[in-house]
């Protein structure tokens, strides 16, 4: 399901709006992931504190959103934009790709909490498609 021109426009607009709060949204999404889907803790066993308020969780969440921002900037070729991260996930991190869907879900929840009524169904659709593409790119090199 490729992104239409309209999808890309909506994604870009939302990104511009939320980028000042990107770190906070990322931290929120990751914190939610760990609470709502506790099996994901397995990938963070090296974090001392796994609560949503943990500085490590917040910092990592910020990193994740930063990467998503890069994907937005290079939205016409997400595969190229996230190429290094794709290798990192395939050969080092080895996160089960199932988890990308879970994080996409919590990210959408955090986005909607931030945007409120502005998180229209259209924007929801565009971002869901986009995050599915990001997930596919990150799993690209696994096999």
């Amino acid at each position, binding site marked *: *399901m*490729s992104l239409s021109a309209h999808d890309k426009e909506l994604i870009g607009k939302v990104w511009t709006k939320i980028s000042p709060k990107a770190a906070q949204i990322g931290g929120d999404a990751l914190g939610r992931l760990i609470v709502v889907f506790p099996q994901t803790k397995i990938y963070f066993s090296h974090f001392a504190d796994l609560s949503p308020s943990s500085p490590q969780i917040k910092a990592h969440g910020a990193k994740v959103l930063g990467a998503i921002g890069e994907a937005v900037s290079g939205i016409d070729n997400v595969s190229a934009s996230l190429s290094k991260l794709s290798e990192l996930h395939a050969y080092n991190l080895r996160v089960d790709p199932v988890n990308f869907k879970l994080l996409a879900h919590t990210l959408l929840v955090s986005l909607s909490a931030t945007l409120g009524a502005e998180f229209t169904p259209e924007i929801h659709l565009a971002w869901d*498609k986009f995050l599915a593409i990001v997930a596919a790119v990150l799993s690209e090199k696994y096999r």
Partner: protein
Amino acid sequence: MPLTDADKTHVRSIWSKASGKAEELGAQALARMLEAFPNTKTYFSHYSDLSVKSGQVHVHGKKIIDALTDAVNHIDDITGALSALSTKHAHTLRVDPANFKILSHTILVVLALYFPADFTPEVHLACDKFLAEVSYALAEKYR
């Protein structure tokens, strides 16, 4: 997860045997799906007989394998080859894409059953990736 040259070779090689038994393989894959995953019956409420002996199941099973043969013959542009089928699934049939995984699974089971010596782990992997690409291509027009 793009298909490597090795993947394509494996798919073509096993498919050269499969395409000759299109009706039998298709009927088996479809009937097994309907029996092992009864939720899928919802899309065949117009069939009087859902067993592997059913004429309707045979006709439809052959159609499915023939479409996959077409995809194999256009393995470098599966999206293009399946474009019309994608439109049909999206706008007319409206099969939930989650079910594509289920049928992919029963197709692999049937390939293993019929061609045990050929269905090595490498061929299994290649076919799984190929069917995932087919599923993705079929879901293309949904949204």
